[in-house]
């Protein structure tokens, strides 16, 4: 929803822009319109009985914002925090409310403009390696290969009440 409303006012190319970041050596991209800001790594407060990928919450100018370990969410091996580790603050609608979430990444990379020709939607076959549908499409720019993430299932699996999660994966 956010992308739609803003897309009307901004030049069309913003809608095709992606912020990319590195995770375990691969370059991932998310729609730039959903990115609110990028923060340096800092202390956080762990949450009790949370899912493994929910690291905890941080104070973002008075708002309580959960931060997620994107490596853990995507099933990648864990790594130590380095000087490039950053938190990408995402703002998007979930369950009829705008939610703000932080994604912890190895490092922030670039902003690319991707034309529809450069984006290849994931096929059905991809579902076997990515059953939750975290990957939306693959993109290519300057001979580089990008994995474009689908934020919806990441938000859903994080924000759904515990009972619903337990019901889904008993």
């Amino acid at each position, binding site marked *: 929803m956010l992308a739609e409303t803003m897309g009307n006012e901004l030049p069309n190319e913003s809608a095709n822009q992606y912020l990319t970041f590195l995770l375990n050596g691969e370059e991932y991209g998310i729609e730039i319109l959903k990115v609110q800001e990028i923060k340096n790594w800092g202390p956080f*407060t762990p949450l*009790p*009985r949370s899912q493994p990928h929910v690291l905890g919450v*941080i104070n973002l100018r008075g708002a309580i914002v959960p931060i997620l370990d994107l490596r853990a969410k995507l099933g990648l091996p864990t790594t130590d925090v380095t000087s490039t580790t950053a938190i990408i603050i995402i703002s998007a609608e979930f369950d009829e409310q705008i939610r703000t979430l932080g994604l912890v990444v190895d490092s922030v990379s670039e902003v690319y403009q991707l034309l529809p020709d450069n984006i290849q939607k994931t096929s059905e076959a991809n579902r076997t390696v990515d059953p939750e549908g975290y990957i939306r499409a693959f993109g290519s720019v300057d001979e580089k290969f990008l994995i474009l993430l689908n934020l919806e299932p990441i938000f859903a699996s994080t924000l759904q009440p515990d009972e619903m999660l337990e019901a889904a994966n008993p």
Partner: protein
Amino acid sequence: MDDDLEEFREIFLEECLENVELLERGLMQMDAGESTADILNEVFRAAHSIKGGGATFGYQPMAELTHFMETLLDEMRSERRAVVADDVDLLLEGLDLVQAILTDSKEQSISADNDGRLDLQLRLQASVDSAEPRADAPEETEAAIVVEDEMRSWKVTFAPFESFFLRGNNPLLLIRELQRLGGCTITKSFDKYPGWSDFDPNNCYLTWVIDISSTSVEADIREVFDWVDTECELTIEQIESSPAENVAAVVEETPEVAAAVVAPAPAAAPAPVASKKPAPAAAEKKPSGGGADTSTIRIATDKIDQLIDLVGELVITQSMLSRVCQSQDQIDVAELRERMADLEYHTRDLQESVMQVRMLPISSAFNRLPRLVRDLSKKLDKEIDLILEGETTELDKTVLERMIDPLVHLVRNGVDHGLETREERIASGKPVAGQLKLNARQESGSIIIDITDDGKGVNPEVVLRKARENGIVGDEELSVDQINQLIFAPGFSTAEVVSDVSGRGVGMDVVRRNILDLGGRVHVHSTLGAGTRVEINLPLSLAILDGQLVRIAGQVYVIPMLSIIETLEIANTERSTIPGTGDVFQFRGEYLSMLDVSEFFCLPDGGQGELIVVVENHGKRVGLVIDEVLGQQQVVIKSLDKNYKNIEGCAGATIMSDGLVALILDPANFNEPAKLAAAA
């Protein structure tokens, strides 16, 4: 445009509710025999405003009903009739209906009983007609009535200003209202139409000339335009001799004429549409609100002025501070400290003032009780003295709104179960009139409301027997105090007969639930034969709480001060392990179960568990095992589910002075240890 109208509608509804409150208070005073001219005038004005607004915003039933009420009140006001209890009863009944209509329109539903309204209107009219004139009634009354019955013709020229629609007015409704006074012949004029090039569809260029033949006097006609008198030119002239026969034929056409007149101008569209639009608009609003109350609050201007002053001070302090920090030489530490002290002072002032904005006197909740007690006293035939104390005690608006139902319930319960019948009271040597006292006061960081009756008190034997019968408790021994609290258990009722007043055993459970949800506590004290006192302990505000900072497994947590009873050193307590229920410890002669917070939260490091904080949990006491007690501090409550979701055992989070987030524990929301053990 729709938004504008919606906005006005909301203001109107708010005002109506205020007027309803005024009316109720006035009527209660009249009922108590205090019918001074001031009270009567105030009551009349309130009814009149509801009627005027109702007509303008298209709440026809409400306008009609208040019209009849107003007529009766007018007679009383002008001393043409005495104030009698029956009439006050009728007016109160009318008030209830107005309230029902208002609630309906706020919630966009229709449940108000229309037949009941028509019936009540007839009874009100009958009461007016029956006119028990006062012996000392002014002489001219008779003459005035005769004159009013005469048919007269009026020529009304109604020329709204161009900005008429912008204020959310609808001429059609006014014209319809006029038609209710008598037969109308309506002609329209486009004289003010400026031509297409200058035409602004938001403006009103129409003028109406309405010939009306009616028994009404000029004031009645003027009253129709009461709400718009600053937004139009209005002339009313009387015409001699009316062709009364023609009127009937014209009446048939008028609605179409009026509609046709309004329709051609596109500008008129917003107003008529408004009557259909609100429903979807309101429906859209609900989900986005996420179930939260989006109510408005009225604030005295001086409170706002004070806030502006304080913000001004804060800005000055801030600029002083930055000047100190920017100085080229060594920073003057003494001055810096001084400015920091100023900053702290202003910040605290500002915080207090901002909190004040949300505070309302508890009288707005207490005000409904006299009426309730009056009705109950009639229904149950008990004489009751209601005493209200501390009505100026201020409470957070949300807390106040959510306390109304519990208060009503407790008062109802006290009157029904607590106070005895006349005969019983005489037999036990008490005054015939039972006493029900409500007292509100502030004690340190919380608000205490006591509801005391001098009735028969809670009989612990009966309560225990009933609780065992209903399977609420087993055969264990309970102290008298523990038994008294059983009346709050779900499904508990001692009433032999379930009446529509109370006795279904749902209410008290809900009362406790509501109070717990607000972060408060409720406790019953009772002496058999001498009375009952229900003590409610509420937080001052929902946004800020007095917190005890504690450390558990290396993390700082906040426990609300209000729920803490005592803190003990674990080494000094007598502990034992009971298979199946976990650890218990002795506290003031009672065995309480221990709950290790680090275990409950599955914290990886685990705590050393040096201290036990005894807290109240669902009316039961539980010991929370923690590592260390830190300072006490006021904390601002932030919701976790805004960006995340609610966590069991947490009431929210707050931001500490180091900028880190700390979780606020919610003792009422900790699961029973047994259930937890089963889950783990």
